[in-house]
């Protein structure tokens, strides 16, 4: 509970440090990515199931909501809800056969799924605008349009705190304990009477729905969406955020999202060396801090005491 209050305080006080719209924009992107990562962490960190295709669900949320709102004139809130439900449904249908696989095989299956979604998005240009992307109408309800960096900041901040609260509660519930038991040993969990298939599917569907919701919000916020957000590399970025911050640590996921969303903005000073530095940072953190930033720091602090 202390952590949640601290996060709420950070969200509430951060505007004091945000000087201009560009800062707000980065804060909003950090918040949206953090929401995805908190959801993905339930799957990777707690249930121990690797997904290399979550940009696909993010993309279904983003493009689904954008297409329904822009091409079919749906009110944005309805399109957002429908796209999120569609991603959850797809995750539920595909999750059943896929989640029987373990380790590398599961990673590959989700990778394949993500790439297929991204190819569909790039190819069906009548709906999605193809590689050029498409513009997305702003979020509006009953004539009131959500516009401006500040309004978006508070919406995203509120949603982030809500997602973290949900995640912390879930982890402390019997379902959360079941998920952690699965991570430890699937066989042992089954012997203890846990329905492993059902719990893995729950974590998968929940993380997909959260990714889709954040995707739809990202699209409506930016007013534009390109296939880059659905690509394999974006899936990787999301996983790296979770693992960098620390698996099985909800706040680690938030920290990971913050660092890795801000990092590319800082890395632009390296110009053509940007990719080299990014790849290098990925490798070094995984080699020397395989547990991730937050758990490693927590262990260090614990040793000091």
């Amino acid at each position, binding site marked *: 509970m202390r952590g949640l209050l601290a996060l709420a305080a950070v969200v509430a006080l951060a505007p004091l440090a945000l000087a201009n719209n560009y800062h707000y924009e980065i804060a909003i992107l950090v918040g949206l990515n953090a929401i995805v990562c908190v959801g993905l962490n339930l799957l990777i960190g707690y249930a121990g199931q690797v997904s290399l295709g979550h940009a696909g669900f993010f993309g279904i949320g983003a493009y689904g909501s954008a297409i329904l709102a822009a091409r079919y004139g749906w009110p944005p809130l309805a399109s957002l809800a429908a796209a999120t439900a569609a991603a959850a449904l797809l995750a539920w249908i595909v999750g059943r056969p896929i989640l029987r696989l373990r380790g590398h095989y599961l990673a590959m*299956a989700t990778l394949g799924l993500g*790439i297929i979604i991204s190819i*569909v998005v790039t190819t069906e240009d009548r709906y999605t605008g193809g590689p050029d992307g498409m513009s997305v109408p702003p979020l509006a309800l009953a004539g009131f349009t959500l516009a401006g960096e500040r309004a978006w900041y508070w919406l995203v901040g509120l949603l982030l705190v809500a997602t973290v609260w949900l995640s912390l509660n879930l982890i402390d519930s019997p379902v959360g304990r079941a998920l952690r038991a699965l991570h430890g040993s699937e066989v042992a969990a089954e012997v203890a009477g846990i329905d492993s298939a059902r719990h893995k599917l729950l974590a998968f569907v929940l993380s997909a729905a959260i990714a889709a919701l954040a995707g739809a919000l990202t699209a409506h916020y930016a007013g534009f969406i390109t296939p880059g957000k659905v690509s394999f590399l974006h899936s990787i970025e999301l996983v790296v955020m979770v693992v960098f911050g620390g698996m099985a640590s909800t706040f680690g996921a938030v920290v990971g999202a913050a660092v890795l969303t801000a990092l590319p903005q800082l890395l632009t000073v390296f110009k*053509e060396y940007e*990719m080299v530095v990014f790849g290098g940072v990925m490798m070094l953190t995984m080699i020397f801090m395989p547990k991730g930033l937050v758990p490693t720091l927590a262990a260090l602090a614990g040793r000091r005491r």
Partner: protein
Amino acid sequence: MSAELAQFLLSGLTVGAIYALVALGFCIIYNASHVINFAQGEFVMIGGMATASLLGAGLPLAFAALGAVALAALVGMALARFAVQPARGASVVTLIIITIGAAILLRGLASIVWDKRIHALPAFSGDQPINVAGATLAPQSLWVIGVTALAVAALWGFFNRTLTGKAILAVSHNRLAAQLVGISVQRVLLVSFALSAALGALAGILIGPITFTSWDVGLLLGLKGFAAAILGGMGSGPGAVVGGLTLGLLESLGAGYLSSAYKDAIAFIVMLAVLMLMPGGLLGGRATERV
């Protein structure tokens, strides 16, 4: 056989041979270390790009190709020594991220050391097409299929006839037992990374005259080689070859008769279907897990 079908089969076999080489690379590293090397496609890129730049420096093709293969093998060994070995025993997702980080790093380096332009390698023996059953066959396709066949035969010999090859097989079957009979697991890791990097580079050189090469070709080729490895059965050498050729044929026939727009999706649809219906692949054994 209609000329159209013959054409699709020929181009499918050509691309399939390339997928087979990449899949073999995955397979060798997976067997030796249980790491899925996401940087495998970058070796293909290094092969093509290094050959192009050495040719540009005035070297004859054979030497340029040798140099490129040697460079890729060195990069492979560096990857094993400085990235995979220090992370021994890390979780699946950690190792996946390390090799993806390496792939991004290599791609970034390639765009700096070389450039971001698209390069075409010259065909090894002219562009005069050969007529086969009404279809046209580029001489380069014969090079691709022929050299791949030679490489597969050489690999078979290496794993069945030489002590180093047998040591790699021993480690892949049982690490601890292999160590107990005096096999250096570290050396096996280095050799298998060098070998699969060399195979990847070879694929990049062979396909260079047909599909061109640039700093970012590695990602898609790597992922498709990976789909081929799954189709054949992860960790099975003959499976990688069969999987590569099958995937090449499916892709070529699918693009010809179904939808050319979804050509790139075929590999991943096949991979997903295989994983859902028969995770062992075409030639892989049934996976059992010790508790």
